[in-house]
């Protein structure tokens, strides 16, 4: 299966076969087909709509689980705000104590008025917290004025992959509201 076949099947009216095909979950929606297409057909948008045509409960468990966790806890990894706060403070404490030159490194959470809010993937604090340190060190060395948000703090969004438009929108709205109205920060920075 490939994007050209999908378009041919659509042209031939093979809607049933397309709906049955699991390829909509294999496609990564990377848009390289759009770049190559002379008519710039938005195939990823078709894929997203195909995903949305599957009843929510029947969509892939892995993606569904991550989306549900994000709505419930604020991150796809399912870490609550308190777990996140504890991990960040714990790692920061260790760096301040053990890493020379970073004794006064400033790592804050939900600090109102910070110049930038960092949007970090929840994989780091949950599965490899030591990976946050190098980024904080860089921010410290350039004198950046930054903070982490605790509302919808996970930088990922599996509800988008799930084609759960309501969930996707809810995550975005909660995040935007928190940054604009609570933290009042002018800049949101996506990390690597």
């Amino acid at each position, binding site marked *: 299966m490939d994007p050209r076949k999908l378009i041919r099947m659509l042209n031939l009216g093979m809607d049933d076969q397309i709906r049955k095909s699991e390829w909509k979950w*294999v496609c990564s929606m990377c848009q390289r087909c759009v770049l190559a297409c002379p008519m710039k057909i938005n195939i990823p948008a078709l894929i997203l709509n195909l995903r949305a045509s599957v009843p929510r409960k029947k969509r892939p468990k892995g993606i569904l689980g991550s989306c549900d966790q994000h709505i419930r806890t604020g991150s796809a990894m399912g870490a609550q705000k308190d777990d996140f706060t504890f991990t960040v403070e714990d790692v920061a404490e260790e760096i301040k104590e053990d*890493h020379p030159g970073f004794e006064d490194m400033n790592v804050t959470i939900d600090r109102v008025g910070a110049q930038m809010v960092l949007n970090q*993937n929840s994989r780091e604090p949950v599965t490899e917290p030591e990976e946050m340190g190098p980024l904080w060190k860089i921010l410290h060395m350039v004198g950046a004025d930054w903070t982490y948000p605790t509302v919808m703090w996970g930088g990922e969004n599996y509800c988008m992959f799930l084609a759960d438009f309501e969930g996707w929108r809810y995550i975005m709205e909660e995040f935007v509201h928190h940054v604009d109205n609570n933290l009042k920060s002018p800049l*949101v920075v*996506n990390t690597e």
Partner: protein
Amino acid sequence: MRRFNIPHKFKLITIIELYAQWIREGKLKVNSDWNKDIGAKFTIQDPCNIARKSGSNKIVDELRFVIKTVVGEENFIDTVPNRENNYCCGGGGGALQAGFPDERRAYGRIKFNQIKATGANYVIAPCHNCHAQIEDIGHHYGGNYHVVHLWTIICLAMGVLAESERTYLGPDLAKVGL
């Protein structure tokens, strides 16, 4: 936010653009001296989100500027094709969790071969999906490369990377600057 027309006051940028800006302003004091004698070779993965989907090559060009500054121009080997025309890692769009690992790895083989052709030991993949997928296909197809974050290499170059922060480095760089 664009999709749902959610109004917002803040501006959204990537840390890569800031790294580049800080290097130009002299705030991020980093160079490639550490790699002069070692000569570790680096290549790149262009994540679709910051390449094609950002609407221009601006961010991925900044990414190249940062990498060349940190590892040395002679130690950076670009992929073919690259930037907005680069291949997908094969792990995005939820594919890592969608439950079709054979298909995911079959698409990933294109990425694996492309990385292998550069001969680089290190792949900088500034996206979590790409990072996880490229590690997975590396193990699956027997690649001998390491997938690293840019922040790891920047801190290594500045001499502030602690021993506990070197999970992704290979044995050739594991002790550098300690």
